[in-house]
């Protein structure tokens, strides 16, 4: 079996598949342990009830569904809420150590839109703890990891995925894997935007490869802005400032010193859901109340230097080193940054199986759990819960099937595509095209969207797609990042097109998708998910009904005296459109 990606989901899947007796190969683009999971700072959401004993999976389930504006896959949300506590405890058996309560249990902190204190954490480096524990486990189990290998195409035998093809980044040699099943755990696509908290790896490879192989891409228009990214200096723009800053009690002020979240969401304040906080900051800046470099101030000074250094050590270090700001003495300047893709490959809730036989997906590369907006901390638990499920299901699948046949023609064709930029007749610079795509997406399909800007953006993507065929990269196949970027760019263009096409069609504001020309929610669109699929090389769109909740879960969302949770609020107070009152 082949697992593509060695972040949280990929490693958890590999561990589970190996436990099921499969021979597992893991492939990752970077060195092991560098995946984007390390960037997760705040924590992992699981209803352990260690700090707030009233917490339980039903409340977590409701929070997740409400955060996702009810276009989530309810079954995924249910499994996630039920199973994440066990996955967290399991992680400690691999050697992880979370922060603790005085009596020795796992400590939990408050986070945006979680009803109770629910996030298990280790200071502000939870992701590192998680990835290192999983990495150690992988090493302990002797699972084979191929580092610095990029896969670019799934190989099919008829309908079925039977392997993958790509190249070794170090020497540029081609590699092909013949496997009974493939698990995509390739993460998201933040790199399509200019201001992002994502690393170079977040180019959407896995989802685009799945798309090319015929899998359905669900909810591509739902791209999350994290409300607090660094703003200044320019070099650090977009780098994440963890939500734990607000979880620990930090608050946001505008240039007039006013704590504006009291107005936009009096109940949850700074700990409202991410879409609401990001939009609030955006509106303050638009209204001329932004900070010097176009953001808001995030203040933790009242917590005291000692608590800041203990609970937020890497934030303290990050601002001191990179921005010359001592956060115990001055506020942080923050603005929204692209953070997470709620969309991804459409999967079956229980197994992570995509619509293509032999292809599974888990983590950010899969979609459905988070709906229109992800809650902070739900991503790490997503990786563990659905990583394990995909690993187990694929492990069972490979017991029943034989190896497929590798089609030489597919391999030859992909070789030709991959080698194209190295041949001498192109003129375009791959990095500059990438920058232009990022700029186009930032301008046209960013936080605030409207029909006109989206259509312009689509035109620019289609034009860039033409120009991408004429990329030329100097040098050899030996560790050549320019050459690597050229192939990544094709994936990014596919995903960008899917995002924009779906964003045009969703003519409403819901969760992370905010349309200036349709400020309200449309109940009809609240009943469907958009799906992008491959039709002879073109991105086509269709809708699917949102899976209907069984009655016993649905009744959790009916409140006495209110006819429908999707009732439309007055247009003058847009933030309310994102809430369903509890």
């Amino acid at each position, binding site marked *: 079996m082949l697992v593509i990606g060695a972040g949280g989901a990929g490693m958890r899947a590999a561990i589970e598949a190996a436990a099921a007796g499969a021979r597992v190969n893991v492939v990752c683009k970077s060195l092991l342990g560098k995946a984007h999971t390390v960037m997760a700072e705040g924590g992992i959401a699981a209803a352990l009830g260690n700090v707030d004993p009233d917490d339980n999976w039903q409340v977590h389930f409701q929070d997740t569904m409400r955060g996702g504006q009810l276009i989530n896959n309810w079954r995924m949300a249910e499994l996630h809420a039920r199973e994440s506590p066990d996955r967290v405890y399991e992680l400690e058996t691999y050697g992880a150590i979370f922060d603790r309560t005085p009596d020795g249990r796992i400590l939990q902190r408050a986070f945006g839109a979680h009803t109770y204190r629910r996030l298990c954490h*280790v200071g502000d480096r939870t992701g590192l703890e998680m990835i*290192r524990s999983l990495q150690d486990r992988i090493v302990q189990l002797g699972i084979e990891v191929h580092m610095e290998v990029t896969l670019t195409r799934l190989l099919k035998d008829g309908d079925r995925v039977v392997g993958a093809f790509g190249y070794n980044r170090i020497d540029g040699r081609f590699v092909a894997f013949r496997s009974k099943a493939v698990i995509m755990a390739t993460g998201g696509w933040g790199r399509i935007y200019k201001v992002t908290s994502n*690393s170079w790896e977040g180019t959407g490879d896995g989802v685009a490869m799945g798309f090319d192989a015929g899998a359905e891409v669900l909810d591509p228009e739902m791209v999350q802005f994290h409300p607090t990214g660094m703003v200044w200096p320019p070099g650090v723009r977009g780098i994440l400032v963890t939500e734990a800053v607000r979880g620990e009690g930090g608050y946001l002020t505008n240039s007039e010193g006013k704590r504006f979240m009291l107005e936009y969401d009096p109940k949850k304040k700074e700990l409202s859901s991410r879409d609401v906080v990001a939009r609030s900051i955006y509106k303050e800046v638009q209204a001329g109340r932004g900070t010097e470099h176009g953001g808001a101030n995030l203040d933790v000074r009242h917590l005291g230097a000692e608590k800041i250094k203990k609970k937020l050590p890497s934030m303290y270090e990050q601002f001191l080193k990179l921005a010359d700001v001592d956060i115990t003495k001055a506020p942080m300047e923050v603005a929204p940054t692209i953070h997470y893709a709620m969309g991804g490959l459409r999967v079956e809730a229980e197994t992570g199986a995509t619509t293509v036989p032999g292809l599974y997906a888990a983590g950010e590369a899969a979609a459905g759990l988070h709906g229109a907006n992800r809650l902070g901390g739900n991503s790490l638990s997503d990786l563990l819960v659905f990583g394990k499920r995909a690993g187990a299901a694929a492990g069972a699948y490979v017991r029943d099937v034989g190896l497929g046949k590798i089609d030489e023609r597919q391999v030859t064709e992909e070789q030709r595509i991959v080698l194209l930029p190295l041949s001498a007749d192109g003129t375009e610079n791959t990095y500059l095209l990438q920058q232009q795509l990022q700029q186009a997406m930032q301008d046209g399909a960013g936080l605030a969207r409207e029909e006109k800007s989206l259509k312009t953006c689509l035109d620019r993507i289609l034009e860039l797609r033409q120009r991408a065929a004429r990329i030329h990269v100097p040098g050899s196949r030996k560790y050549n990042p320019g050459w690597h970027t050229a192939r990544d760019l094709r994936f990014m263009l596919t995903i960008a097109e899917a995002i924009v096409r779906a964003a045009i069609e969703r003519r409403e504001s819901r969760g992370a998708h905010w349309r200036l020309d349709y400020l309200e929610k449309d109940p009809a669109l609240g009943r469907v998910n958009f799906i992008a699929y491959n039709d002879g090389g073109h991105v086509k769109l269709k809708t699917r009904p949102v899976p209907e909740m069984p009655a016993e879960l649905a009744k959790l969302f009916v409140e006495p005296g209110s006819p429908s949770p999707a009732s439309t609020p007055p247009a003058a107070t847009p933030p309310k459109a994102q809430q369903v009152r509890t």
Partner: protein
Amino acid sequence: MSSAPIVLQIFRGDADSTGGEQRFEVPSVEGMVVLDAVHYVQANFANDLACRWNCKAAKCGSCSAEINGRPRLMCKTRVDEFVGEIHVGPMRAFPLIKDLVTDVSWNYEVNKQIPGFAPAANEPVPYRMLPEDTERVYEYRKCIECFLCQDVCHVLRNHDDKSAYYGPRYMVRIAALEMHPLDTQTRTGLLHGKAGIGMCNITKCCQEVCPEHIKITDNAIIPLKERTATDVYDPVARIARKLLPSRAGQPAESPDGLAGATPPQRFAVKDVIRLKTRGRRFARVANVLPDGKLQVWILHMNGKVQHWDGPKIVRTSDVTNNYGPLDEVGIGGKLVEQYITEDHAAEQHG
């Protein structure tokens, strides 16, 4: 404040060619880090310039390089720190692949040789660990595996002797495992043997370059040296045997005293232990009495408030070790220290 352009001298070359520095001029931007400058070069002048990077926020440890001769993370090094040209080269302790990229696979091979976390098979899940016992492990677990400490370690770098010593990174990893409150494995045999902890002579270069500010030498290597000394040569047990001749139920010491043999159950002042009675309460050793019994403080939780009840006298057969001795060993600590000093004097001669 855009001023004069920044001049970078970046090493270009690969394993097959000699290589050398190439000069680039990059426009200066406020707050720029070296990685920004390298990216600018990559996008505008040399698309094929090889470098590793991921998070750009000093959390992943990918962009290690030598900047003006000093091992550092490119993402965390501001260009306005320097006057004049900035020289950027690959880590020199590892074989060159191309430009700023080196072959660090040796580190991953070493990692595979270290026995992983091994809790007791009957340890109840979810785990209970006290905050004061977990806190010291956090320092080791902060490591982002940038391998700068490996790069600067004179054993690995100058003598190029990778067969004799695992290097600072893996001392930190072993320390994390050894100090884990619930780990049961002993790795001192490995430390004394293949891991080569004796090769380190405490020059502290590794801890100077650590971007996570882990006190590698002070808090990982030295305590591990102490532990190794205790387990391998066992002066503590020798003294303890003289002082406490009546310690019951202790198996005869194995003649070699090396890893593999089960270490005898020993208790020292400040050890965290667990009572065998129902509830397996935590307790802390206040004193080891001459008759071998322990004077302990027992932990009771009143809501979220800790309450230490005691001192109570218990027999060693009524308690279990939660894990090994803490940072300062109550008995024979001085002897160990003395031994270490001597050991180092001996090694430097050899």
